[in-house]
């Protein structure tokens, strides 16, 4: 029975496909056009976004392939099959810590940004805490519920983003795209590096694949899912360049919000429509944070089997809150984000590749798929 099947912890391939863009679209989208524009000349940033995007899609495909060759097995169990139990333990543990970091970073950035855009008087601690409490409420529910939340929020996020872009059509100036291909290799490399940081979070595939009902179909779905944020990012970037010009884009703090500011509703029912944009962005950050939190719990519980989920939630949320309050100002938040992003990207990429290579050499995984 389909509905009843959906009631338990299995997720469909489509839900996995939706989960990836929900995870990737998060805090980064507001400042992304600036950080890319700073490294490149003219409109060249989209090439960097595309290169990093293609690499990430490949990576997602590899991850999905790896995890799908051990159907219905959690990360820890297949990792210990490939590289002995202790090593797998360390890997899972590092993943857990990284995802705790990601969640903490998201909570802080959300608090920081909403304080800047929505209210000046409320302290960031309160804003972040209230957000964390809502996240805890979501994590305490069922895992299938999280995927349903993605399904509810992602269409809204995509719709608002596209709406903002469409409304900005009348402001674009195509000549702003020029000059093209003027960036040197170093600039491209830097921009690729920066843009790859905005694609972090894809390693959820490694963990969530255990719950997918038809894993053999998952790699393709994961790739499709991953291309959604890439296309949105490239479009968003090009629009920022076309509307504001390169120089302005690289100096605006959150170019995407400024894009939203341009929206004027007919009859001026509401001004400052970017607040609505911000509200929807909050949902995007929420899905990212919740999934990061959930993966941290999942990872920790696969290592420490005896701990209950609620105990972990109650232990992790203050940790996360404390961690999110460590940076003092926006520059420290940026540094925190950069360090976290670099480690996450490098660690998840190397782990995946190492696991795949060793699995191939030792012949685990792909074999039992054939025998099945």
């Amino acid at each position, binding site marked *: 029975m*389909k*509905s009843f099947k959906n009631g338990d912890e299995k997720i469909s391939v489509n839900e996995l496909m939706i989960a990836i863009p929900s995870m990737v679209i998060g805090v980064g989208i507001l400042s992304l056009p600036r950080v890319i524009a700073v490294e490149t000349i003219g409109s060249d940033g989209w090439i960097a976004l595309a290169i990093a995007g293609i690499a990430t899609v490949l990576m997602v495909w590899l991850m999905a392939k790896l995890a799908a060759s051990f159907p219905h097995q959690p990360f820890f169990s297949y990792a210990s099959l490939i590289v002995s139990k202790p090593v797998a333990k360390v890997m899972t543990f590092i993943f857990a810590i990284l995802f705790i970091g990601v969640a903490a970073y998201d909570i802080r950035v959300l608090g920081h940004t909403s304080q800047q855009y929505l*209210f000046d008087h409320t302290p960031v601690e309160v804003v972040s805490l209230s957000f964390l409490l*809502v996240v805890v409420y979501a994590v305490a529910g069922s895992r299938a519920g999280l995927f349903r939340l993605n399904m509810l929020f992602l269409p809204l996020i995509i719709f608002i983003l596209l709406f903002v872009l469409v409304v900005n059509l009348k402001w674009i100036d195509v000549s702003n795209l020029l000059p093209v291909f003027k960036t040197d290799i170093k600039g491209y490399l830097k921009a690729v590096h920066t843009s790859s940081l905005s694609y972090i979070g894809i390693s959820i595939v490694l963990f969530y694949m255990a719950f997918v009902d038809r894993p053999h179909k998952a790699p393709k779905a994961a790739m499709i899912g991953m291309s959604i944020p890439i296309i949105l990012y490239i479009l968003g970037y090009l629009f920022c360049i076309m509307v504001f010009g390169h120089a302005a884009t690289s100096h605006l703090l959150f170019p995407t919000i400024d894009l939203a500011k341009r929206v004027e509703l007919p009859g001026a029912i*509401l001004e400052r429509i970017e*607040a609505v944009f911000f509200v929807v962005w909050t949902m995007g950050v929420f899905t990212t944070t919740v999934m990061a939190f959930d993966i941290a719990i999942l990872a920790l519980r696969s290592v420490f089997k005896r701990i209950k989920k609620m105990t972990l939630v109650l232990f992790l949320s203050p940790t996360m809150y404390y961690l999110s309050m460590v940076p003092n100002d926006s520059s420290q938040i940026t540094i925190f984000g950069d360090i976290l992003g670099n480690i996450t990207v490098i660690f998840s990429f190397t782990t995946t590749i190492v696991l795949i290579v060793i699995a191939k050499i030792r012949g685990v995984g792909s074999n039992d798929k054939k025998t099945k």
Partner: protein
Amino acid sequence: MRRRLVKQNEQVNNQEKSQPYNPAKLDSNLKENILQLKKLLDEPNDLIIREIAVGEDKVTSAIIYIDGLIDKQLVQYSIIENLQKLSVNSQLPKENMELFDGIYQTFITISSIEKGETLEDIANAILSGKTVFILDGQAKVMLMDTKGGESRSVEQPTAENVVRGPRIGFNENLGTNIALLRKTVQNSDLRLKTYQLGKQSKRSLIVAYVNGIINPIIVKEVNSRLETIDVSDVPESGFVEQWIEDSFLSPFPQIDSTERVDKAAAALLQGKVVILLDGTPHVLVAPMTLGDMLKSPEDYYERWLIGTLLRLLRYVAAFIAIFLPGLYIALVTIHSGMLPTDLALSIAASREGVPFPPVVEAFLMVITMELLQEAGIRLPKPIGQTIGIVGGLVIGDAAVSAAIVSPIMVIVIGLTAIAAFANPSFSTGITFRILRFGVMIAASIFGLYGIVLVYIMLNIHVVNLKSFGIPYSTPFTPTMVGDWKDLILRAPITMLTRRPKFLDPEDSKSVNKGVKDS
């Protein structure tokens, strides 16, 4: 929490079952039996015992019933008259045992007769409107169904009005309700399962479903939950609802209730279960999902374009009913920059002289609105107009001229109230009213950000909620795109060829022509 209750209940049930219950058997002496019965019921004055001598031997017999619970004409013509004719009839068997069977087979013209052997049987039977025939020398009795007495005629439901569609509604009589349902769903697969509920005051409950359409898992789940019901008295189907619902902490109704026959019948044919209880016109429909909150049977009777637009309107109304006062608070207090300058100025001008911040103002008005609504229900009809005058003139007009609330606030609250009434079911309206307060509090603390947090929390709650094992948020998510044809949109009837997929019916096709097997 519900599971815990169920578990406790099972334990209690098991304990009770382990102590066998030995009811007192009837005596063969008629006088003795009647004496015992009178003792048991403490000789009430509406207990009628009519003694009749039957047969050639003038054997004493008696019919027993309670005045007011039976159909007097039926008892008069089908029982008493026949029995009296019996005395002059000579074809009767003489033997006492045969006499009893003879009367049973030939002379009583009541269609539904059972036999009883204990005093308890007699007492229960006469209390539920049956007539008991007792013959001297026999340790058993006949329980004849002569239910009657006062009941309301079939009328138009008062709470769920439609412009177009059948006017008929359920009433308090279970037999009538079942008949209405049978008349509407003329299907040989309509199954009715009867339960007796209540320890102290017994009532029958009937679970209706259409075999071959409904998924058997749903029936099983409903039955297993109904079996756990253990109360002394079930005055209304709301009791049943609260016993078998999934989460009693949720503000959302998880079981639909309706007075409309057409709605119940449509639900049966979609693959849902309908639960009818004796003594109430409100029948329960399960399982229920989020989309059902805003559906009205009328959507299907009007042409699809009208149906679709009405649905859309209701969704907009739902959002207004929940979020508008909160949004107003957020915009006026925290994000006043978001309002267009002219509007901001006119709001500021209208608020001039109002001593309270918008939050207090909004709470004052919303609570007044709730009071008016509640008082309007309680007031007797002849003075019902008073509430309109008091509400409209005194509160609305006077409050504004006294500068306690601003006119814009009155507009906002008025719009919210109208939007809440625009949804088809009363229990949904209550849900909206509860949620509204949460939104208002969050909005007064965090503004728009608070509203979005509440919105997210609502979503979290809904995706974790279930109704009889079916996720409450279907078919929005888990997504069943096929079911979206009848959700916010109402596709043309010719396109609604399949039953809702989220119910996973055994027979998914509701129209056979032109639908490929899948």
